[in-house]
């Protein structure tokens, strides 16, 4: 009876081992596939970057132009699915924290989070529309340039003040938009602006290529993490099988 039980346990272990080996091979297959795609995407990105450098000049795209003003990244990573095993309570909170960070079991899953995705393209369009709105609302300013007498200027100013009072509710949001746009145009956190206000379209293409590469990098890391986890499981199951 004991022998039958151990036989069943042995076959169960073998099935588990097969499962882990297949999992590991699947992850490795995915890893190799993603590596190839990453290489192609990066190659395309480097090509676009070189084209942009050729168009704009070598000094216009270089590392000294990177902004050193404090700024946060627009692409960050969330780490999910990590199981932290705190084995025992020691009593010293600092040490417990340390242990909790070190002992992480299970494959770690990464998830890319982009903060401000479509802000970059908006400013030029909204700026134009705002300009047309402000031109329609303040034709007096244009007239004032032609008039030269002080009394007319004073009248115009009074009119303007009255109009501003009436339009405060409507224009409040618009002025806010204008402010944000003005801030956005000077914003050093947008990496494209480090290299100038008007950049080569090749640089934009390079940006999109490297953004794709970033997505692939995260997928690659997930596959790598799964493969490493499955490999660890296979090794431990093998060790257990040899010990039995």
């Amino acid at each position: 009876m004991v022998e039958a039980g151990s036989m069943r346990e042995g076959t169960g272990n073998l099935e588990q081992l097969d499962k882990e080996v297949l999992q590991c091979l699947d992850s490795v297959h995915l890893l190799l596939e993603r590596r190839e795609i990453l290489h192609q995407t990066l190659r395309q990105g480097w090509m676009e970057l070189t084209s942009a450098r050729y168009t704009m000049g070598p000094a216009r795209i270089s590392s000294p132009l990177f902004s050193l003003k404090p700024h946060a990244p627009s692409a960050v990573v969330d780490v999910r699915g990590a199981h932290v095993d705190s084995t025992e309570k020691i009593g010293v909170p600092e040490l417990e924290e340390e242990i909790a960070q070190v002992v992480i079991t299970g494959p770690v899953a990464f998830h890319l989070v982009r903060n401000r995705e479509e802000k970059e393209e908006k400013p030029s369009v909204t700026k134009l529309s705002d300009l047309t709105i402000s031109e329609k609302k303040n034709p007096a300013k244009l007239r004032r340039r032609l008039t030269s007498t002080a009394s007319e200027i004073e009248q115009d100013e009074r009119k303007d003040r009255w109009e501003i009072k009436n339009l405060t509710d409507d224009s409040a949001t618009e002025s806010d938009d204008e402010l944000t746009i003005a801030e956005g145009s000077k914003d050093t956190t947008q990496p494209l602006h480090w290299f100038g206000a008007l950049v080569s379209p090749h640089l934009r293409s390079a940006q999109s290529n490297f953004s794709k590469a970033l997505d692939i990098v995260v997928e690659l890391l997930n596959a790598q993490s799964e493969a490493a986890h499955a490999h660890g499981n296979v090794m431990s199951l093998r060790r257990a099988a040899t010990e039995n």
Partner: protein
Amino acid sequence: MAAAQATARSSSLIAIIGDEDTVTGFLLAGVGNVDLRRKTNYLVVDTKTTIKAIEDAFKDFTNREDVAIVLISQYIASMIRFQIDSYNKPLPAILEIPSKDHPYDPSQDSILSRVKHMFSAEPTSSRS
């Protein structure tokens, strides 16, 4: 024996050690971070960069709490191979990427070599 499930890190940074074009590209993609002490999460490696500087940057990035991924060009990783191989923490995760002048060499990939070893070790164990 208390097993506590927890998300390890959220909104973490991606650090990069690479050549100028690779770093520029990833910074364009939006991974660049400069904190109030003007500490960056990237290192541009050129001909003037010493191995000590690369080692220091690697140590710094792997010890930082806010970094979840360290991307490193493979040819730079091979300069500090000992440190890369001896690193075994799950977070931050290390990923070796190709660079512009040095294509990716799969024989240096630690996961692939481990898997290869797993299958090559099988006949030896069966013989003994």
